[in-house]
C-alpha cells in the first residue's frame, strides 16, 4: 500500500540484464524517517534494487518516484540527486587524505566552509585523529567508516547502505550500526539498508523485506517479520533452510 508521504516509491519495476530478469518488484514504498532493511541471499538482486533506488541505473520497465514524481537517472535534477547517497560494500575511497575524501561531496556542491562539518562527521565515526592520513593506509573497518563519514557530512535525506559491514570484525560492525542508528535518529536520514545479515536487520530496521530471486517475498515491521513470518520462504530464510 502506498501513502502520500512515501519518500520513495517503486512501481511495476522489472529489470533485465540481457534476456535475464534480475528484479521484478510490483510495488515498494520507503517511508520518511524509517530504517528499511532489505535482506536476502547473495545474488537475490539487493544491490541492483539499491542502484535503481539511488537512480544510478535505469530500470528496464517501471517507475521510480521520488518527491512525488517519476524520474530516471538522466532526468533527475542534480538538486534532488544530492539529497541521497549510497555507501557501497567496498569503501571506494579516493587516493587522497581522509579529510579530502570526506570533503568530496561538499566540494562537488561548491561548499567552501565545511571544515567543522568534516570534523564532526569524522568524530562521529571516531576517526578525527586520522584526518590528514592517506586513505590508502586505512584498515578495512576504518575505510568503511570514512566512507560513512563521507555520506553523513552531506546530511542526506535518503541514505542507502549496501552491505556496509560485510567482512568486518564485530567491533567495527557494532560501531557502524551505532553510526547508522544515530544518522537516522539525530540527523533524520531515512535509511535503506541492504544486508544478508538478518540479525543486523533485526537490530537496526523498523521494517524488513525479503528479496529472493529478484522478487520481494514479504515486507513487514521488524518484529512481525522475525516473529510471525507469513511466507514459507521467509521462514526458511530466517531458519537458514532456504537453499540457494
Amino acid at each position, binding site marked *: 500500500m502506498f501513502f502520500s508521504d512515501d519518500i520513495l516509491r517503486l512501481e511495476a519495476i522489472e529489470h533485465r540484464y540481457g534476456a535475464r530478469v534480475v528484479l521484478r518488484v510490483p510495488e515498494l514504498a520507503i517511508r520518511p524517517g524509517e530504517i528499511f532493511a532489505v535482506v536476502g541471499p547473495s545474488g537475490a538482486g539487493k544491490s541492483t534494487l539499491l542502484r535503481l533506488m539511488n537512480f544510478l541505473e535505469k530500470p528496464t520497465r517501471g517507475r521510480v518516484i521520488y518527491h512525488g514524481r517519476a524520474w530516471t537517472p538522466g532526468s533527475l535534477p542534480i538538486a534532488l*540527486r544530492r539529497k541521497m547517497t549510497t555507501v557501497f560494500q567496498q569503501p571506494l575511497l579516493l587516493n587522497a587524505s581522509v579529510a579530502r575524501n570526506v570533503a568530496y561531496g561538499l566540494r562537488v556542491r561548491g561548499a567552501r566552509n565545511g571544515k567543522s562539518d568534516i570534523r564532526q562527521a569524522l568524530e562521529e565515526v571516531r576517526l578525527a585523529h586520522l584526518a590528514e592520513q592517506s586513505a*590508502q593506509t586505512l584498515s578495512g573497518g576504518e575505510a568503511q567508516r570514512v566512507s560513512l563519514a563521507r555520506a553523513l557530512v552531506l546530511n542526506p535525506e535518503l541514505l542507502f547502505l549496501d552491505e556496509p559491514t560485510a567482512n568486518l570484525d564485530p567491533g567495527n560492525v557494532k560501531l557502524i550500526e551505532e553510526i547508522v542508528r544515530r544518522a537516522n535518529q539525530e540527523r533524520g536520514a531515512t535509511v535503506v539498508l541492504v544486508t544478508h545479515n538478518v540479525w543486523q536487520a533485526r537490530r537496526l530496521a523498523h521494517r524488513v523485506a525479503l528479496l529472493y530471486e529478484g522478487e520481494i517475498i514479504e515486507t513487514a515491521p521488524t518484529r512481525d517479520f522475525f516473529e510471525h513470518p507469513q511466507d514459507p520462504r521467509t521462514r526458511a530464510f530466517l531458519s537458514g533452510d532456504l537453499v540457494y
Partner: protein
Amino acid sequence: MSAFLEGFLQAIQLIASFDPDLMEIVRLSLLVSGSALVISAALGLPAGIALGLKDFRGKRLLVALVYTGMGLPPVVVGLTIYILLSRQGPLGELGWLFTPRAMVITQTILALPLIIGFTMTAIAAAPPALSLQLRSLGATQRQIVFTLLYEARAGVLAALIAGFGAIISEVGSVMIVGGNIEHKTRVLTTSIVLETRRGNFALAIALGVILLAITFSANWLLLHLQGRLDPRQ
C-alpha cells in the same frame, strides 16, 4: 672511448658557452616536441578517458587500432605526411613541407596513440563502481571525469612521459618532413645524424648528451609532479 669523453667535455663546453647555434637547435627541438605533446595531450586525454570509461560497439577494434598506433614506425608516418604535404599531394597548397609545422604534425601522430593508450589503461584500472560512487555523492558527469583523471594521475603522467620521450628522441619522420634545414628545421636528433655522417663524432655525442639531459629533466619534472600529487609521499 676518447670520443665519448671528448663529446662529454664538448657538451659541457657548448652548454656553458650558450653557443647560439646549439641554443637555436635546442629551442626548436623543444618547441616542436612540446607543441606536439600539447596537441596530442589535448586530443589524446579525452579520447583515452572515453575509451577507458565507455563501452560501445566497435570499441575492441578501436583499442586494437590504438595499440597498433603505439608501435607506428616513425619513417612510415614521416613518409605519409611527406606525400600529403608534397607539392603534388592533397595538402600541398599549405606549403608546410620542410617547416616545423610538418614536424609537429608527424610527432603529434606518433605521440597520440601512446597518450590515448596509456590514459585508457589508467582510467580503466579504476574500480568500475567508483563512477557510481562519485555520482551517488552528487558529482556531475564532468566532475566525475575530472576526479577519475585525478585518480589516474600516475598513469596519465606516464602517458605524457611516454609521449614526450618517444617524440623528442625520434629522428626518422622529422628528417623526412623537416629536411634538417639549418636555421629552419634542424633539431637535436637530425643534427646528431648529420654530425655523425660528417665524422664529427665528438659533436654528435655532445648533442646526444644534451638530448639525454633534456629528456631526463622533462621526466624528472613529471616524476616530481607525480610525487607531489601522491598523498603517500
